[in-house]
């Protein structure tokens, strides 16, 4: 069985050489790596850029965590560096006795700026591009058996717009007044009234990023509808493609309202309109406005994107995880159709739950009731998906390699993230928990050990296809256990802090509201919860250190990793493993014809435990 496969693969490689005829001319560095229209190169471009942004977003939060754990104390090394770049936004700290300068601490303004940028960068420039654009670009055309995306040049434009938007966002760190400070949500009138051009940069960058994701979404949907290989019917598509398909629809339809939100805020900023500024607004920096606007309007427009965005973040990771679970349990996914239909329902429902982010805005209890109901309904398809993935493990002979470890960790971690969301979805318990660290803990459990674990699993899983070499298994496991332990140590205490009433967005980590500092006040924050800040900060730094083996592994393995034995090292069924390694421009040596389902593992009576989709049993 192995020998027949090896023979086939040998043939494949032979074909690959012959196939190279129509692009044997070397396109040169710029056309090959920068202005490439090849979906795989674009996927890798997206991947590298978004991983860099993720690292930068982590640096921002690491700096903020220092301020929360040790408020007002100078930050070693980083404080002085920030002073050089950001100037007055750092606050100088003097020795109380000798009056000597002992370093620079994070000022409240800088904390706000970093907080806003951490959220923006992590969501719009790191996780979504990595989950949707990077994996989607690389894997989807391969999995459906296509030669490329439907619009290769549009694909290139989409990446370049994304990069431009990201650079504009980064540029705002270097302008006087620093970047946007009104949180990643940029609520008006706060965002409009803060006197920094950073908000302007934020808005312009967002409009460009939205345009980029719009082009991407059109491209993905058109590709999946039009370019499926012969025989690749909808119900033979790997679940990952389904997840990307629904994600693309969410991006296509949910992002335009945010574009409108940003556009109207831009008009408020530069054209003197009052879309979000009510009559009688009394802010000293905003005189002579015409009034008549509505701050609630912005929040509706923002969260109309904001909630589908949550599913944009999670669905691709679910797709990755289900591919890896099916492959490493050597079993078909349990309830493939349920997964697909749940994803479609999830996509639809995600458009009618947005105002559960707004229970405390005074929009009215009747509206709250409606959105509370839809929010509870949307938890059903999410639970179905998670349950299907859990049951898929049942009775499998599981291979515990690095991608599988991350995929397995995804399940309970996303479960914690999802279940802690229920008290936030009920409007009466949300009154207590809104804007506390409980919320932070909740959505970080969804995104960090949830989505990001899923995506890291994907990197370990598809790396052999991209490079022809495995990533180091030992360091992969070190990376996994370090990340798993410190991820939990970072986010678990936040639930306790939140339930104790510690609010988010405070540069001093709640010291100002502690019982220690306000002995007479009712409802002050107990000392043990303030002290948790230092623990969380140390855990976050350890989490950062735990990524070092991954970064080294990622680059080292390109040239030094263990070589793959065949084009299909994981013995997978899906089509991306039926290409040469790495796949050439145009992907397949012979156009594939699909004859079977996506997860034909351990088929009774078959000679091997997997049947690739383009091979008959």
């Amino acid at each position: 069985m192995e020998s027949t496969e090896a023979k086939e693969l040998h043939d494949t490689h032979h074909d690959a050489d012959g196939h190279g005829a129509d692009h044997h001319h070397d396109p040169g560095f710029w056309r090959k790596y920068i202005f490439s229209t090849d979906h795989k190169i674009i996927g890798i471009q997206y991947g590298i850029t978004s991983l860099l942004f993720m690292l930068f977003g982590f640096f921002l939060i690491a700096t903020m965590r220092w301020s929360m754990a040790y408020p007002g104390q100078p930050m070693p090394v980083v404080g002085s560096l920030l002073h050089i770049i950001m100037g007055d936004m750092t606050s100088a700290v003097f020795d109380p006795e000798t009056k000597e300068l002992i370093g620079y601490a994070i000022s409240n303004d800088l904390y706000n700026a970093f907080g806003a940028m951490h959220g923006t960068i992590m969501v719009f420039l790191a996780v979504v591009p990595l989950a949707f654009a990077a994996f989607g670009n690389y894997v989807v055309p391969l999995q459906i058996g296509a030669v490329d995306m439907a619009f290769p040049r549009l694909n290139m434009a989409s990446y370049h717009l994304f990069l431009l938007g990201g650079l504009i966002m980064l540029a705002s760190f270097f302008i006087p007044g620093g970047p946007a400070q009104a949180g990643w949500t940029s609520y008006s009138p706060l965002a409009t009234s803060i006197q920094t051009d950073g908000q302007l940069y934020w808005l312009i960058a967002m409009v460009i990023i939205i345009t980029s994701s719009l082009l991407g979404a059109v491209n993905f949907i058109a590709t999946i509808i039009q370019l499926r290989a012969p025989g690749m019917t909808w119900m033979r598509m790997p679940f990952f493609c389904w997840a990307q398909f629904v994600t693309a629809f969410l991006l296509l339809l949910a992002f335009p309202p945010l574009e409108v939100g940003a556009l109207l805020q831009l008009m408020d900023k530069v054209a003197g309109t009052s879309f979000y500024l009510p009559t009688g607004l009394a802010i000293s920096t905003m005189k002579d406005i015409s009034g008549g606007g509505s701050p609630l309007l912005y929040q509706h427009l923002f969260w109309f994107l904001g909630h589908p965005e949550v599913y944009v973040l999670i669905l691709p990771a679910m797709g990755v995880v289900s591919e890896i679970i099916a492959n490493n349990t050597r079993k078909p996914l349990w309830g493939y159709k349920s997964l697909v239909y749940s994803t479609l329902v999830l996509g639809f429902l995600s458009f009618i739950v947005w105002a559960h982010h707004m229970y405390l805005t005074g929009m009215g209890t009747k509206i709250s009731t409606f959105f509370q109901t839809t929010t509870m309904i949307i938890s059903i398809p999410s639970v179905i998906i998670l349950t299907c993935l859990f049951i898929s493990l049942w009775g499998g002979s599981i291979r515990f390699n690095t991608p599988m470890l991350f995929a397995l960790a995804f399940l309970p971690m996303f479960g914690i993230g999802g279940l802690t969301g229920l008290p936030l979805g009920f409007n009466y318990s949300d009154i207590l928990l809104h804007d506390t660290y409980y919320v932070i803990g909740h959505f970080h459990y969804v995104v960090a050990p949830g989505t990001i674990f899923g995506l890291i699993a994907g990197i370990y899983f598809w790396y052999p296809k991209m490079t022809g070499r495995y990533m180091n298994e030992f360091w992969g496991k070190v990376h996994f256990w370090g990340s798993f332990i410190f991820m939990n140590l970072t986010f678990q205490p936040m639930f306790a802090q939140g339930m104790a009433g510690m609010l988010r967005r405070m540069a001093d980590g709640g010291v100002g509201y502690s019982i220690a500092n306000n002995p007479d006040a009712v409802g002050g924050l107990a000392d043990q919860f303030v002290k948790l800040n230092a623990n969380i900060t140390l855990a976050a730094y350890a989490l950062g250190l735990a990524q070092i083996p991954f970064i080294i592994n990622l680059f080292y393995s390109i040239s030094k990793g263990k070589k793959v034995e065949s084009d299909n090292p994981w013995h997978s069924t899906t089509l991306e493993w039926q290409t040469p390694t790495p796949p050439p421009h145009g992907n397949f040596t012979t156009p594939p014809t699909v004859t079977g389902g996506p997860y034909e593992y351990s088929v009774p009576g078959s000679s091997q435990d997997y049947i690739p989709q383009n091979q008959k049993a």
Partner: protein
Amino acid sequence: MEVPYTVENRPDTGLYNAKVGIWLFLASEVMLFGALFSSYILLRVGALEGHWPTELLNVPIGTVNTMVLILSSVTVVMAWASLKLNDFKKFKMYQLATVICACMFVLIKSYEYRDKLTHHDVVLADGMRVDGHLVEETDEYIILSHPVSYPAVKGIGYRPTAIKEAEHGDDHHHAEDRKIMLADIVKRTTWGPWANTYFAIYFTLTGLHALHVIAGALVIAYYWGPGSKMWKTNPEQFTNRIEVSGLFWHFVDLVWIFLFPILYLL
């Protein structure tokens, strides 16, 4: 390597790639303008009495512009149909008409914009509001033509009522120019987006729509001019491109069909 279905239809979907792409793009455009229309509704419902001055726009001009766009919608279909009938000359003629209509629309729209942006609106120290077209401006005074005055608290939407009241004998409305000393002026603006929320949404909606008109016209003009060389090499794909640009153009027209009543008439 060749991406399939760029020219011919995929059998099971019955569509070529670009047609799927443009329909998806239009879906997102529907969400874009849908969000703006929703904003319009929310702002209008929340507006105070007299602060939604629909009556200030020039309906006849708006009607002409609507006709111009509808006409262009017809010609763009005729252009595509001519290509299908293999009549390249007629295509050239109809598509030229489309581009001319687009230019006319933008010209008429910019005349309307200029009309509003030169309309001054001042609040005087005595609590009255005077608006009119700027005729002359010096360091000491401004002169407004066709001035109308009414109490400032009533909002600029009160203007038509003020004119009617003037016709019934009250002395609000002056046919002759009015000279106003700068020293008497508390606040001075023009009827731009900053004037009030109605003008804000008016300029935003029509501005965004005008950008779409310009973008569509540029594409159509390109395929009328230099891009039409493709007719000789690949007529089918060229016809597809005209169809796709035509679909976008219809969408742009359709948006205006909604914009015209909600901004001018209702």
